[in-house]
């Protein structure tokens, strides 16, 4: 019996403490508390920046208190889904573009159109048209765009010179790039390109440019069928896979390499180039300060086969429909996506903004060695199809790439299987 006795006081204390805390916080609630959740809060630099931002906000809106809820990058969709399904999601959440369609469909993002209308005509003119398209669901705005970046090649100019490449005349075609990559490769020591081949959100950002610059696409224009059976798609797929299997210009382990693995390779001079964006140089610099990343690295537009194109990274803020303070939540979202704050996010974290009046004009961005290349590519930016089946399609596609990379299947067979599978997935839609 002793065991039982020793436990009850603990359980009782636990319950009492919980009740007390709950009662106390309820009593203290004079002003409105907003729950704000963002994966950036788990990262030191961003956390500092966001905390400063929230302090400014609270000073301007003394009636609103912002309670931050950090969630790790990997787990955010899981947590938000469970909470949203039970009607207890944070008031404001930060999401990637690729999660948006699923959240729209499930009704986890509030329709913001009426707030925007109240802000007056032309409120949305400050943003680029493409991100505005992405935050719309059935013609209504359900999110506010945040970071907006294009994928570019980030290369180590020292290794470029070593390979005998003129840093001012970097190859602009994939054929030229392959020649360069071969020259930059010393088997077992150093490779031309770092390749992300893991099932990771970062994969499609780094693969899509191949497909699009070769003139191919994932789906047909009406989004009803897979377009992976086109010659362009086959050519792009084979080119990508053969970089590893045939030409061996990428380091071993591509199928489990995530973006951070590849940046580590770049930081330690194992690869000459990787596909990255504004975040690349600061992170690489942190990984290996001896590299002097800001001096040595340089950004180039992606090579082209048929047409110029690149992939877009977009993040955005949504308001949960279960919020009890929609007006206050809107004020917060409006604040974090304001011109002033977007510029702050760039200065602190090097992310370019979806706002034209920031990314298009701010001298800080136009004069930045990396940001100016990234911003110049914005007109060629393209996004993956915004349909709720997309995560499933991408999973099937990444699987096919991995099968081809591990030579479990020949590239054509892997791609044909993915094509069929994607059509099966899309068939459910019709």
């Amino acid at each position, binding site marked *: 019996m002793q065991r039982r006795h020793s436990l009850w006081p603990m359980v009782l204390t636990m319950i009492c403490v919980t009740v007390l805390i709950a009662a106390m916080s309820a009593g203290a609630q004079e002003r409105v508390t907003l729950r704000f959740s963002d994966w950036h809060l788990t990262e030191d630099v961003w956390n500092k920046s966001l905390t400063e931002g929230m302090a400014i906000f609270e000073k301007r809106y003394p009636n609103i208190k912002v309670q931050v809820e950090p969630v790790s990058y990997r*787990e955010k969709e899981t947590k938000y889904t*469970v909470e949203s399904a039970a009607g207890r999601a944070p008031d404001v959440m930060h999401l990637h573009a690729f999660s948006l369609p699923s959240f729209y469909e499930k009704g986890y993002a509030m329709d913001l159109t009426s707030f925007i209308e109240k802000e007056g005509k032309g409120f949305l003119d400050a943003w680029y048209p493409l991100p505005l398209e992405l935050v719309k669901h059935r013609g209504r705005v359900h999110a506010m765009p945040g970071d907006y970046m294009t994928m570019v090649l980030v290369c180590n100019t020292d290794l470029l010179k070593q390979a005998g490449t003129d840093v001012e005349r970097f190859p602009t075609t994939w054929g030229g790039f392959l020649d360069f990559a071969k020259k930059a490769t010393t088997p077992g020591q150093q490779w031309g390109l770092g390749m992300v081949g893991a099932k990771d959100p970062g994969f499609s950002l780094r693969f899509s440019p191949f497909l699009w610059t070769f003139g191919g696409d994932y789906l047909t224009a009406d989004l009803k069928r897979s377009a992976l059976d086109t010659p362009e798609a086959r050519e792009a797929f084979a080119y990508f896979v053969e970089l590893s299997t045939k030409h061996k210009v990428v380091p071993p382990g591509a199928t489990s390499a995530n973006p951070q693995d590849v940046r580590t390779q770049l930081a330690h001079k194992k690869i000459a180039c990787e596909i990255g964006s504004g975040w690349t140089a600061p992170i690489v610099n942190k990984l290996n300060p001896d590299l002097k990343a800001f001096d040595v690295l340089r950004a180039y537009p992606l090579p082209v086969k048929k047409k110029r194109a690149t992939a877009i990274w977009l993040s955005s803020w949504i308001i949960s429909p279960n919020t009890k303070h929609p007006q206050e939540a809107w004020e917060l979202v409006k604040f974090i996506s304001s011109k002033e704050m977007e510029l702050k996010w760039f200065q602190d974290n090097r992310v370019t903004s979806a706002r034209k009046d920031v990314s298009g004009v701010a001298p800080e961005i136009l004069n930045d060695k990396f940001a100016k290349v990234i911003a110049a590519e914005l007109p060629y930016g393209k996004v993956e199809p915004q349909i709720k089946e997309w995560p499933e399609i991408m999973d099937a596609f990444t699987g096919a790439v991995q099968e081809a990379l591990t030579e479990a299947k020949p590239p054509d067979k892997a791609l044909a299987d993915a094509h069929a599978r994607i059509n099966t997935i899309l068939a459910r839609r019709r």
Partner: protein
Amino acid sequence: MGSWPFRVLVYGFLLMLAIYVLFPFAWMLSTAAKTESEALAIPPTWIPKEPTLDSVIGIWVRKNFALYFFNSTVISLATAILSVFFGSLAGYGFSRFQLPGKRVLIGFFLATQMLPGVLLVGPYFKVLTATGLYDTRTGLVIAFLTICLPFATWTMKGFIDGVPLEMDEAALVDGCDRLGVFFRIILPVLGPGMVASVLFAFLLAWGDLLWALCLTTSEEMMTVTLGIARTVGEFRIIWPMLMAGSLLGGLPAILLYLFLQRFLVTGLTAGALKE
């Protein structure tokens, strides 16, 4: 113990096992003492060039690990004690009584484990919110109990089956009631089985990520494993901190085991029964 070839065989096997088991720990230890940039050096270094305790200090100072340890310890201990206590009771019931429908019930206990937690976490969330237990340690304990209790029941039943019936009967003849038999006769010899069940429950509650993630939200309720998971960010894994967190996070379980190991010897050998 046995002839020398046998001894060589046993020690050889244990040596190989020790290498297999300790290899990752050696790496964790080495990484925990490195700077973030050295941790990712290619090729890797084994002896840190600039050894630092930064990560170990960092998780206490920059992250609130003291609080996380408190939460995890309370949650895991409560889960372990409750599940082993009720599990032993149920195990005793299953082991010693001819219950109609016993097979179905025993099957049911196991069957409760067959739905993946991924699916249950949504409905759990609703149950805990409805009962006001969301974002409380009690709520998490209750959720973990549903996993640990059936495990404890099965383990304890298997173990009690090995305790000779004569022990119960002798005590019953001496005028003990069933509860008395359970507490005075059976519980004292269940040490080894309890160690297994306590460790299982404690480590399950300690190492869980999904439920702690979804069933709590405030910093005050964070567990150690959630804290460790947060060192895995969007852009990077803070390896030294992850390793320091994992190594330190293992300490309470090790202390618990050191405390429990004396019970790994059953009272059964003490001549308590004569066959």
